[in-house]
């Protein structure tokens, strides 16, 4: 696929996901709404990263940076929430 086509497809997909996320917020899915919205956001982020930022073509180092950031955010959230909600203090 030529570069322009890739960008166009990415753009269309992003707008579609936007419609999806706004639309689904009008349907009451209980707690699942938040999860769905975050999943859609993650999908959008992935499209931007891979197709606009060329993450796949950039070699191992940028992917390592992304993985490290993801892991460290998990540590930040995980252990803080264990401290906040982990039971009796």
């Amino acid at each position: 696929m030529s570069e322009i086509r890739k960008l166009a497809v990415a753009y269309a997909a992003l707008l579609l996901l936007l419609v999806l996320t706004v639309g689904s917020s009008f349907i009451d899915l209980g707690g699942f709404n938040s999860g769905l919205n975050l999943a859609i956001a993650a999908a959008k982020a992935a499209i931007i990263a891979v197709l606009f930022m060329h993450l796949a073509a950039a070699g191992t180092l940028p992917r390592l940076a992304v993985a490290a950031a993801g892991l460290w955010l998990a540590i930040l959230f995980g252990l803080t929430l264990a401290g906040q909600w982990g039971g009796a203090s």
Partner: protein
Amino acid sequence: MSSDVAMRANYLEEGAGPRAWLLTTDHKRVAWLYLVSLTAFFFLGGAFAVLMRVELATPGGDLVSDDVYNRLFSLHGIIMVWFYLVPSIPATLGNFLLPLMIGARDLAFPRLNLASWYVFVFGSLFALFSVLAGGVDTGWTFYTPLSTLYANGFVSTAAMGVFIVGFSSIMTGINFIVTVHTLRAPGLTWFRLPIFVWTIYATALVMVLATPVLAASLILIVLERVFGIGIFNPDLGGDPLLFQHLFWFYSHPAVYIMILPGMGVVSEVLPCFSKRPLFGYKAVALSSMAIAVFGFLVWGHHMFVSGQSAYAGVIFSFLSFCVAIPSAIKVFNWSLTLRKGEITFEAPMLYALFFLALFTFGGLAGLFLAALAVDVHVHDTYFVVAHFHYIMVGGMVTAYMAGLHFWWPKMTGRLYSETWARVAAAATFIGFNLTFFPQFVLGFLGMPRRYHTYPPEFQFWHVLSSAGAVVLAAGYLMPLCYLGWSLFRGARATDNPWGATGLEWQTASPPPPHNFDRMPTVSQPPYAYPMKGLEHERFSPHKDKVRETAA
């Protein structure tokens, strides 16, 4: 050969005057810019410490009022942590040596490097302003809700100063990470790198991943104070404890930012002055990375009594014990490096050996603190103060001195007075122990930290500590004199006065502007001591000097 050294243009001679220094992109000159700023802050923070120790020599609050004392210890902490310790070895020795050690002409982003210094200066001026205007009294830890709702010092200014300096950290970290990945000389695989490079790399990782979280916590404090946004205010639904999580998520890894480069220095100095290869090189390299990673998992040990869940307390306690393991591995490896070595006691080696002793001692004290039940009793006492000063001063500052002396001939092309250096080193060791060992006793006996009045039965230990501080201060002031003097009158150094391995020693002292006349390639493991053909030769900078004058 040594007479040629003085003839070639080196980085110090190329371009004189303020513009050539203030607009430089040469990593070696940027290192000097940092060195000057950091030295100034070290002595400023030290001055506050001296005032505190003078006050603490007597039980009553006679020298300063409560409020002034609060500001003294807060400023001592803020300045020492953020304007000296965090940048110290990375921004001075790291900046100078990293490209040299990997065989590169400069860092990956030289202008970013210079910019990081300007950001540092700008941020530290903010903080200086808050010092001159009256200071802050929240402690360097800025705990909410004191800092956001009740403190009436210049919290926002100080916090903004630290925030800005944090960006300097991040910029340096990015530069170092990219440099190590992309600019190593041909043949210089990861497991041929000097340990100093490994530790600087690990430090850079921590800087990049931890500092932003500090930035977030400081932004939120400033937003609360200045714009009235109530993030940590319990009345508005906020949780003050959340601040502590964000703050310590950075500040615990920050102590590894401070100590890892020191460990790197020691890993270079010990092999050189015992003429032995570093024992267990791979273990030391991987342990450095392990410290950087595990260091992110233990921050809750600062919060055992804060109200976090007991479950989390147990996890953090266990993980804190685990994080001691890679440090212990390194201590064992350093010790074994000395075995059957031909040990000489030049100043860098003295400092490195002191590091080994004091870091071990302080680290063991850390294990006491990691034990939940013990920490409940000694939290917020002088036991904690003693522990972190053993690591930060006994460890980190000692290692900085070791590195400064070890690479001084390389950086300046001059030799310092070995006699004075040894006297200063001895003074710091004696002064340090006299200052901080009594503080372990004080903490155990129940003396709280951040108090300047205390029951008379504690005075004996406080007087010992204050006396030690005088000796320690002398030990730190001496290098200003003899190192400064050596810049003008010191004997000229050869390329490799210590007979050390490492690419930085294969080029002139001081190096040419682009580091190497011919870019090196590497085909050997590091620490190839003792060097071929020179097994029994005792290298001494002064012996070279004698040879030079005789020639």
